[in-house]
Every structure is written in C-alpha cells, then in structure tokens.
C-alpha cells in the first residue's frame, strides 16, 4: 500500500470515529437543551395561570388543552414542589398518544388549594437523530473530499524528497564509482536520512572497492613470485649441465609451482564471485556454450574413448554472466571426463527446467554432501585442485540456480536447476 493511501485511510478512520462520538454528543446536548427550554416554558406558563387564579378568575375558565387544574385538599407535604415527568398523553386528538413533558405543582392560592398540571410536547428523538445525522454526514463528506485532496496533493509534495531517495536507492549500483546525488530537504528527518544514506552508500562502495583491490593485489602478489620461480626453472632447464636426476627434481618442482599458480587463480576467482564483482545481466544461450566446451574437450573425449550422448532438443537462454557460465559448464564437463572410466559414458541433457550432466565412474570416496566443499577431492586424482565444483556451485548460486549431486546406477549426476 502506498504511504499516501495509508495516511489518507488512517485519517478518514480517525475522522469517522470522531464523527460517531461527536454525533452522539450532539444528540445528547441537543436533547438536554430542548428539555431545559421546555421545562422553562412549563414553569413560565404555570406562573401565568397562578397569577390569573390569584386575580380571582375561576379556574374553570382557565382550562384549556394541555392544562389541568383541580382543587385539592390542603396537603402541606406536596405544597410548592415542582414535579417534572415524561408521560404519554393525548396530543391534538384524544386517541393520539405522544410522549409529553409534564410539570405538576400544588399551590395554595387564597384559601384554596389547586393541583396544576401543564403538558408540553417534546421534540421527538427521531427528528433530532435525523437532523444531527444529516448535518454530520454533510460535514463528513466535506472532510473526506478535503482530506483526500490535501493528502494526495500536499503529502505527495511533502514526501517528494523521500520518493526521490527511494529512486536513488533503487538505482544504486555498488560497482559504479561516481558519487550518488541524494536529494536535500529542509525537513530535518529527510535531511538526516539523506545524509546517513549518502554516508552509508559511500562506505559500502569504499568497502567494495577495497575488497576488490585487495583481491586483485593478492592475486598479483601471489602470481609474481610464482612467475619468478617458474622463470628461474625455465632458465634452469636450459642448462646443459643437468643430469637425469636433476631433471627429475626440476620436473617435480615445475609441477608443484604450476599447481600453486592454478590454485591462486582459482581462489582469486572464488573471492571475486563472493565479492559479487560479476553481474549476471546478459542473455546467455547454454546449448551453444555447451557445444563450444565439448569442442575444446574433443581430444580428452577421444583419448578416453568416452561415449557421448547429447539430448538438447532446443536452445535454452538464461540471464547470466557469459564468462562465469562458461566456467561453470567447463568445470562440470571437465569433471565428467576426469572422473570417468576408459570407454565410459557421458550424457548431457538440457531442458527448459534443468541441465543434467551424468557420467560413469567409481562412487565418491567421501560422503556425497561434501562434494561441493572446497578442497574436497579424490586424492587419487593428483592433478585435481578440489575447487572446480565449489566454484561451480558459487556461480550457480550467484545466478539463482540450484546445483545438486546424485549418484545412481553407477552414474554421477550433476543437476543444474534453473
């Protein structure tokens, strides 16, 4: 729900409650006032009657509708007491009963005692309610229209810095280096929010850049001594003085240096993926990418005499990073070749939902749930780094894919679920 809608609804709800309470109060106050006026009128008209009686006018002549005068026996206990009550009495016609206000009093005028009763029609409650409701409804409608107009106009204007900040956050890209322009505002909260947000964005970018720089520098610092060592070995092997034993030593050193160098590259790649330096934002067609990788693997496939079966009926395009997806596929395919039997099978199936790469091979020498862990590898495969599948899974995660492993019927299966 939009903030302005929420504010408007909230306002209207509060207004509704206030109007309900206000309506009740108005009704009560109105009623009270009417009764007060009625009672005052009753007292006044009785005073006139008393005056006439005191002048000696016989009470029979004074009788009229809504007035009764009866001579009573003297009773000092009731003398001069004004008794108000609501009662049903005929109004206009003898058979039409209505609620009326009645004032009864016993007066001693001269030697005669009279009981006087004066009636007055009360304004009906229904009439009061309908009048109050009608006027309040008008007021409420006016308020709804005004509130809505004011909220959508004024608050939208008031919240403009907020909306603009939201836009800036949505467009925020960690990798860009230009400073983000945050809207300024004279409202303290917005100004503070903008300031803090700007600070946070700058901080996050600095951290990101520092991390990126660090991984690049680390890569440089690791690869440089390795390059030196390898260069020295390249120079050493040219020496005519080396005998076979020396050559064997140099060869083994060479292997170790190479492995270290590949390890450095693989770890740098992992760090970069984890640092989110790659954005999966391009359309990548997987079938063609797989075909290209298979071309690169033609020789190992032939040398191991692997039976390759492909089931890729149609192209499958995903949103991703072409370089990373290439590494992902290449790692999976290389794995399927490496951990295979001579003359074994390798099958690839690509559908809309998933990619399955399956190969024959011995069961894993470690629990299956550890297969994606770093440095988890088959120790019999000396050349393997144990990072290929860890990298593959990281890449899959970055793309929002799920990479799973299963072993069934003598087949290793790696399943990439899109």
């Amino acid at each position, binding site marked *: 729900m939009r903030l302005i809608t929420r504010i408007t609804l909230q306002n209207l709800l509060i207004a509704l409650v206030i109007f309900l309470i206000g309506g009740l109060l108005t009704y009560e106050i109105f009623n009270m006032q009417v009764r007060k006026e009625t009672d005052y009128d009753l007292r006044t008209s009785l005073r006139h009657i008393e005056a006439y009686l005191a002048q000696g006018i016989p009470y029979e002549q004074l009788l009229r509708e809504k007035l009764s005068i009866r001579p009573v026996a003297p009773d000092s206990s009731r003398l001069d007491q004004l008794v108000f009550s609501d009662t049903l009495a005929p109004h206009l016609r003898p058979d039409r009963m209505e609620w009326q206000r009645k004032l009864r009093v016993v007066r001693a005028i001269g030697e005669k005692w009279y009981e006087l009763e004066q009636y007055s029609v009360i304004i009906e409650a229904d009439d009061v309610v309908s009048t109050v409701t009608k006027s309040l409804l008008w007021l409420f409608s006016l308020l709804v229209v005004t509130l809505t107009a004011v909220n959508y106009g004024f608050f939208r204007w008031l919240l403009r810095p907020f909306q603009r900040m939201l836009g800036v956050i949505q467009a925020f890209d960690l990798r860009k280096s230009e400073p983000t322009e945050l809207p300024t505002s004279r409202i303290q909260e917005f100004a503070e929010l903008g300031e803090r947000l700007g600070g946070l964005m700058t901080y996050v970018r600095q951290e990101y850049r520092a991390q990126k720089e660090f991984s*690049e520098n680390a*890569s*440089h610092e690791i*690869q*440089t001594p*390795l*390059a*030196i060592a*390898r*260069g*020295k070995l*390249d*120079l050493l*092997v*040219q020496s005519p003085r080396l005998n*076979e034993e020396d*050559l*064997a030593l*140099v*060869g083994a050193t*060479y*292997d170790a*240096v*190479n492995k270290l*160098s*590949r390890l450095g*590259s693989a770890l*740098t790649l992992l760090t970069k993926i984890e640092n989110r330096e790659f954005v999966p934002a391009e359309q990548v067609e997987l079938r063609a990418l797989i075909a290209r990788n298979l071309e*690169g*693997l033609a*020789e*190992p496939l032939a*040398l191991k005499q692997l039976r390759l079966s492909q089931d890729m009926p149609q192209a499958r395009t995903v949103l991703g990073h072409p*370089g990373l997806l290439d590494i992902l596929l*290449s790692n999976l395919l*290389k794995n399927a*070749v*490496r951990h295979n039997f001579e003359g074994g099978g390798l099958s690839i199936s690509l559908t809309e939902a998933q990619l399955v790469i399956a190969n024959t091979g011995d069961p894993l020498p470690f629990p299956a749930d550890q297969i994606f862990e770093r440095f988890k590898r088959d120790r019999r*495969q000396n*050349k*393997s*780094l144990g990072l290929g599948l860890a990298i593959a899974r990281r890449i899959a995660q970055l793309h929002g894919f799920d990479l799973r492993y299963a072993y069934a019927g003598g087949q290793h299966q790696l399943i990439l679920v899109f």
Partner: protein
Amino acid sequence: MKVLIVEYEAELLANLTDYLGQEGFVCEQADAFHAAVEKIAAFDYDIVVLDLMLPDGNGLELLRQLKQDFPETGVLIVSAKNALDDKLAGFELGADDYLTKPFHLPELVARLRALYRRRKFEGQPVVRFEELSLYPESREARVHDELIDLTQKEYDLLDYLLANRDRVLTKQAIAEHLWGDYVDLYDSFDFVYQHIKNLRKKLSKAGAGNYIRTVYSLGYSFKTSAS
C-alpha cells in the same frame, strides 16, 4: 629483434632479460613508468613488453602514449591482474597481445616472434629451418617444399618448437600453449606425447631430419644440430 621490457619486479625483469637474451633478442630494461618513457623517446624498439602494474604510473597510460607517438612499435601486455577490464582497455588502446602471469618464458618467446613477424613482414612471412618451412598465414607446413598434412594442433606444436629452437620445452609449457584454459584437465601430458609422436611420424615420413628430442622427465626440444 629489439625489445624493451617494462617490468617492476626486479627478479622477473632479470628472468625476462636473461631468457630473451639467450634467444638472441636485444633487450633493454625499464622498471618504472618514467624510465620507460625516457627509453621509448630515446630509442626505437620493435616490441615493448609492458607490465600494466607499475609503481609510479599506470601501464595503460604508457600504452596510450606509445601508440600515439610510436604506432610502429608492437606492444605485448603482461599482467598478473587478470582483470577483464584491463585486458579490454589494453586491446582498445592498441595492444597487440596479452599474457597473464605467470607464463612460460617459451610462450613469451613464441608470442614475440609471431608479433614481430606480423609487424615486420609484408606479404607472406615464412619460418624456415633446413628442409622445413612454415607458412603462418595459411598455417601450412612443408618439407622439401612438399606440403605435409598436419592437424591444427600439430602445426601449432611444430610452430612452437621452431620458435624455441634448442630450448627445452616442458610438457606444461607445450600443453598450455596448445590448450590454454583446458590445460588443467588431468593428464594433458598424454596428449602432448600423442601429438609429438604423430608429428615425428609425419615429419620423418616426409623425409625431414629427426630434430625433436625427448628431454627426460621434462619435455621436448627442437635440436638444430645433430648430437
């Protein structure tokens, strides 16, 4: 061939100078941006080997100046910064080739020779040794002027061996040259052996001398003299 090596790491600079010197290249050294700028202004070089990570200036800036003032000079970028950005920026500014550290020195030699060939020869360059001749543009090899039927990989292998005559080429260096990124695939050395075997067979069948020797436990060497 006159080469300027711009490299900040002293040991790496020494390696490069020694190895390229043994190959008969005339090498000059520069270990910083300003030293490089001075040398480039003072002398003519066929190729500049340029490390992008220099302490006192950006390697890419040096590349830009080079390409602006000396467009005839070839540039081979060397960097441990395996950042795609740098690579793309380098090519945009006119770098001719790019090598990522760590690399095999014979690989650098082969690249430099190929780059030199591309820049200096107009028309069809030919690589000759005795009865062998290689035509890089058409990727053809001839023995006694008779075309021999080599696969792409066999041609690359022969080209690589010829670019590094009388040097020991390790199996790793050959594998990396032939397969690049696929080199970490378990026993790529078996493929190297296969290709060497086939190449030897084809060369001897065409009547070429036996130049390719095995260097025990390390690799192979193209010998220019009979031993």
